[in-house]
């Protein structure tokens, strides 16, 4: 299940990044995502320095980079599928790599994939250093409507139960299919129906269990964490860096500097 269990285990660690108040981390990741998404559609080089953020967090929070990369790799094909038709529609030549002409379509497709990689990596890392529950709470404390937060919490809690139920049903089918295709898609449709009905009944039982313990529409979560100096400096310094990277294209500047240097060298033989 996209490694949700492992992500939660990672979130239980205690590095300095883990200990920061969830709101600071959620805000930084939001700023990160908005900044990355705000680039023009043909932009590539200016986004590259943004990898600094995920890399820094992975190192500081001691996350397994390979695991994170695999989680991100699962999502990237979806982003590629969105951009894959751009080269067909947008054939205007935008730049030359030596004698190789690159059309706008290819540039924007690559830009979409790069954007997706950056934003998905940031989101996965956020969950890995904060935990899904804490992210929901932080979002709520930052103004997300309460019912939405409760929905997210329940989804996360019962995702495991539902996934296990689906896995058991699927295994039961496989064991009686003897490696053939079984009866085609039919059984899967029935299985999905059964899963829906079972989830429905479970939802009713959970609701009863909640009512039995006096539920009256509000969740009381007790978390004692504060927004202090470490949180503030984390938020301000990363936001400042993102703004600098957004408004100055560092790879381009380096390129210019190198070009100027060599041109200068050529002028004085």
């Amino acid at each position, binding site marked *: 299940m996209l490694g949700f*269990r492992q992500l939660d285990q990672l979130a239980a660690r205690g590095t300095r990044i883990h200990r920061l108040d969830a709101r600071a981390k959620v805000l930084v990741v939001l700023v990160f995502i908005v900044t990355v998404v705000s680039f023009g559609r043909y932009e590539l080089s200016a986004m590259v320095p943004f990898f600094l953020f995920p890399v820094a967090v992975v190192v500081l929070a001691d996350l397994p980079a390979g695991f994170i990369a695999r989680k991100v790799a699962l999502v990237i094909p979806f982003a590629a599928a969105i951009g894959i038709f751009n080269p067909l529609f947008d054939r205007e030549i935008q730049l030359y790599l030596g004698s190789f002409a690159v059309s706008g379509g290819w540039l924007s497709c690559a830009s979409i994939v790069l954007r997706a990689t950056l934003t998905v990596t940031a989101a996965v890392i956020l969950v890995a250093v904060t935990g899904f529950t804490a992210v929901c709470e932080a979002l709520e404390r930052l103004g997300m409507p309460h019912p939405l937060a409760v929905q997210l919490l329940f989804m996360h*809690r019962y995702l495991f139960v539902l996934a296990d139920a689906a896995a058991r049903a699927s295994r039961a089918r496989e064991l009686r299919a003897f490696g053939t295709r079984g009866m085609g898609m039919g059984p899967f449709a029935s299985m999905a129906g059964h899963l829906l009905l079972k989830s429905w009944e*479970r939802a009713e039982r*959970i609701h*009863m269990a909640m009512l*039995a*313990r*006096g539920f009256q529409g509000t969740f009381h979560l007790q978390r004692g964490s504060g927004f202090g100096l470490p949180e503030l400096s984390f938020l301000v310094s990363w936001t400042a860096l993102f703004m600098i990277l957004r408004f100055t294209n560092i790879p381009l500047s380096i390129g210019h500097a190198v070009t100027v240097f060599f041109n200068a060298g050529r002028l004085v033989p």
Partner: protein
Amino acid sequence: MSHHIVAADRLSFSYPDGTVALRSVSFCIHHGESVALIGANGAGKSTLLQQLNGCLTPSSGEVRIGDFPVTPKTLHEVRRTVGMVFQDPDDQLFMPTVFDDVAFGPLNRGVAPKDVAAQVTAALQAVGAGHLAGKPPYRLSCGEKKRVAIATVLAMDPAILVMDEPTAGLDPCSRREVIKLLKNFSHTRIITSHDLDMVAEVCDRVIVMHGGEIRADGTAEEIFADTELLAGCRLEPPFSMQACVVCGRRTAS
């Protein structure tokens, strides 16, 4: 103490699809009693339990908890008195951590947040699960889940404990731990189970249900000695009261 009486008076119930689940069921359970509700699958045990705290409302007849009939108006009071432990702990544990889950009931009851931690710790320690407080429920074993589910109810300090199959699906040691817990409670206990050996150990009184009716209501010894009654209700005496499968002898009782 009339406060802790659980009484059903000619209680009948049909599900919306027309299945008749309870037919004119009457009984009265007094303070501190430990009562088992036994019967075959589909006999109406779980339906009856759900009537006791108003999860289902009767088609006719009524349930009284202490001085209150169970009606939509008295539900809050009734649910404060009757603590219900569900059969599947996954239905009961829905909060992010074990601590949050045990705190859920007390916080809903309006206990001040600063006092909740002490109640939660006490409830978890009562079931030997103090070390699980910080864990998410889906990472617990079945036995741990079951004990935590009992703690979530204990934390609300109910006078009456209602449990659906408390030992189902547990390994022998976890089962033994749950039995020990149940024996030590001083609450009024109403327990459904197919684990008749547990019933023989924990309960003084047994109510036998069959086809939505009460077939018998008596002491555990009386009921379990009546093999004819049990067979008629698709039941058997507890293993501890049956002849030895190896030598055919009965243990001295």
